[in-house]
């Protein structure tokens, strides 16, 4: 940009009025507003909360549309090679890195962290994508294998994605927690419908933008902002959803995770319960190395038999 047309920065002239963003949902690779036309105010965390945004207040119909988009994308995503999925996940890390400062600022505001803590948080979130990217073509070797049956049969068990997974993102950890929930769902070929942290949705929306620009096919991750207690029951009872991650039910206002699990029983969804025991759900520590538990929670083991003969 030419400097000749620009006013000196140190002048006392009023600072430029910045262009604000309208925060929208992310469904099927597009960024629609809520079909309900509603939005809700989002504030920063800290001693003096500041207004951050009017986030879209997703409705049950938005959730329904997101499930349709996720279902449509699922077979293609699962059918991609594991190598390809790994590259796509790694690309997410690359794109996040390039928008690092934005993520840091948003996490800092959303979670009320120091700059240093926010930096660490964003770094961990980016590294989590890298970690899971590497798993894409390895978990099947670790979790599957040949079974030595007592007969002339080839017998092989392989893990496969369970299908469409609904996820309640953690309420507290707005980015690292979100990534820690989403990455293990999609790395194996599931598609996700994610309810962002109700009060801290801004980093999630930015993540959606990163996903949209990083080779993740539309519909693989769908993100809804809004009131967890309003939308979650519709996802829990949705019969075209194969599994639900209730991690974010801990600390979500007016949400009893047992009720969601009960609703999920209608079509025998696989349920990943929130951490903690019994009704005392807590948000887990996302800084620790995740292990395979989350990845495994959304896999089916398929076992194929075939005779061996001439």
């Amino acid at each position, binding site marked *: 940009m030419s400097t000749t047309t620009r006013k000196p920065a140190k002048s006392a002239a009023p600072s430029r009025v910045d262009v604000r963003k309208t925060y929208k949902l992310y469904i099927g690779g597009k960024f629609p507003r809520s079909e309900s036309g509603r939005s809700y105010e989002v504030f920063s965390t800290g001693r003096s909360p500041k207004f951050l945004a009017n986030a879209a207040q997703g409705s049950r119909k938005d959730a329904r549309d997101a499930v349709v988009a996720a279902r449509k994308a699922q077979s293609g995503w699962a059918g991609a090679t594991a190598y390809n999925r790994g590259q796509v996940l790694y690309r997410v890390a690359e794109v996040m890195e390039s928008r690092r400062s934005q993520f840091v600022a948003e996490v800092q505001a959303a979670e009320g962290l120091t700059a240093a803590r926010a930096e660490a948080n964003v770094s961990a979130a980016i590294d989590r994508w890298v970690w899971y990217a590497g798993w894409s073509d390895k978990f099947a070797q670790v979790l599957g294998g040949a079974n030595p049956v007592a007969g002339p049969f080839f017998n092989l068990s392989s893990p496969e994605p369970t299908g469409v997974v609904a996820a309640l993102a953690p309420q507290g950890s707005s980015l690292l927690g979100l990534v820690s929930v989403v990455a293990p769902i999609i790395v194996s070929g599931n598609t996700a419908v994610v309810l962002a942290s109700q009060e801290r949705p801004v980093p999630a929306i930015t993540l959606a933008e990163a996903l949209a620009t990083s080779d993740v096919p539309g519909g693989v991750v769908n993100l809804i902002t809004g009131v967890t207690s309003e939308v979650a029951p519709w996802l829990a009872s949705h019969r075209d959803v194969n599994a639900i991650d209730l991690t974010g039910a801990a600390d979500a206002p007016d949400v009893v995770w047992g009720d969601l699990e*009960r609703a999920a029983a209608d079509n025998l969804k696989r349920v990943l319960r929130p951490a903690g025991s019994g009704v005392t759900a807590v948000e887990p520590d996302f800084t620790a190395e995740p292990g395979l538990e989350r990845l495994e929670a959304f896999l089916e083991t398929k076992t194929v*038999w075939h005779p061996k003969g001439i």
Partner: protein
Amino acid sequence: MPTFEYAPAPESRSVVDIKSSYGLFIDGEFVDSRGGTPFKTISPATEEVLAEVSEASEDDVDRAVAAARTAYRSWSRLTGADRGKYLFRIARIMQERAREFAVLESLDNGKPIKESRDVDVPIAAAHFFYHAGWADKLAYASLGDNPRPHGVVGQVIPWNFPLLMLAWKIAPALATGNTVVLKPAETTPLTALLFAEVCQQADLPPGVVNIITGAGTTGQALVGHEGVDKVAFTGSTAVGKAIARTIAGSRKKATLELGGKAANIVFDDAPLDQAVEGIVNGIFFNQGHVCCAGSRLLVQESIAEEVEAKLKARLATLRVGDPLDKNTDIGAINSREQLDRINTLVKVGEEEGAVRWAPECELPANGFWFRPTVFTGVSQTHRIAQEEIFGPVLSVLTFRTPGEAVAKANNTPYGLSAGIWTEKGSRILWMADQLKAGVVWANTFNKFDPASPFGGYKESGYGREGGRHGLSAYVTTGATK
């Protein structure tokens, strides 16, 4: 014209000693129920009363869970090697008493002796052998950090494979250090009660395995009991959903092995004679009382007539009758209730316009019987193509392309198993990838092995039983909370 009539070849019943009444097996001994109403178990082949069995009341469930809890403290601290040795002992005793188990199973369940003798009992023993070896090797099983038992496991099993389902449930639970309260189905309690004697002979510490008999109410009391840490259930999808609701929001984990409506898909390049055997074995094994039964035959249109003709000729050679006769292929339907259900759905099939066919064969006067039945001209939207009949009834549908076969096979809320018959290897692998089913049998059907994980997608339940995968349902991992 010579005819080769097979004279009756009954297995001797004298090998089993059925008591007139049975108590509950709690804390290592048979005890009387406190407040339960005794019920009778009958032979479905003759309707003869075999024994009177106790109904476990809520009190009894309490006692059994308490005994399992007490036993858990020492059982979970036993070395894996020692737990394994108990399982090896149990496996050996089951082999030693195999004939007794087989006869008792056929009497109480109605299944042909050749199946209880050659399938149920040997595979049940094999499950104990297999899991015995895991008991001291859990650290090598890739189960996650620090695998350890849940505690007390409540297990509810169905009537179709009473002893085998018991083995599927108890062997991995004990190998991983859990203790067990198991409820067999109300129509088939006898082999579980004989298994209790095996536990005694093996000197298994009291309370490690408790067997409580009863019906649905007892099962509910067990599943809902506060002292139960994990639930394992095999049975109908409806009950599975009820269990999932019961334990929602609690600490209890569950594995659920539920219903199915498997497609058995036959392509025009299939090894036809073996495919016909696979179709027969798929749906008529165990009177079709099999959750993974190949109840929907999807046959490629170009060979549909040929397959139907071969299938009918083959069915004409099936021998229906006395379960204890060694030549019987199809035994009795397990209960009047189940027979009624089969009759109802078969009537629906006829009303819907499907064509019903069954071979001529004489059925015994007493007991519960159903001829092996084939419905042709079935559409995907017929109820007999959608609902689990759980009986010897096959629905035949056709397809034209592999894609259509996959679409039809997957068009069901169930996802337990599927069959593929073709000599083309690449097509098998492609099909196996596409099918939403936990077990895919290619050029074979209804094969089971302790080393092979079993379990379904979608409404066929969750969790796997058997193999390394089956162990994971019985351990919790991660940091100690």
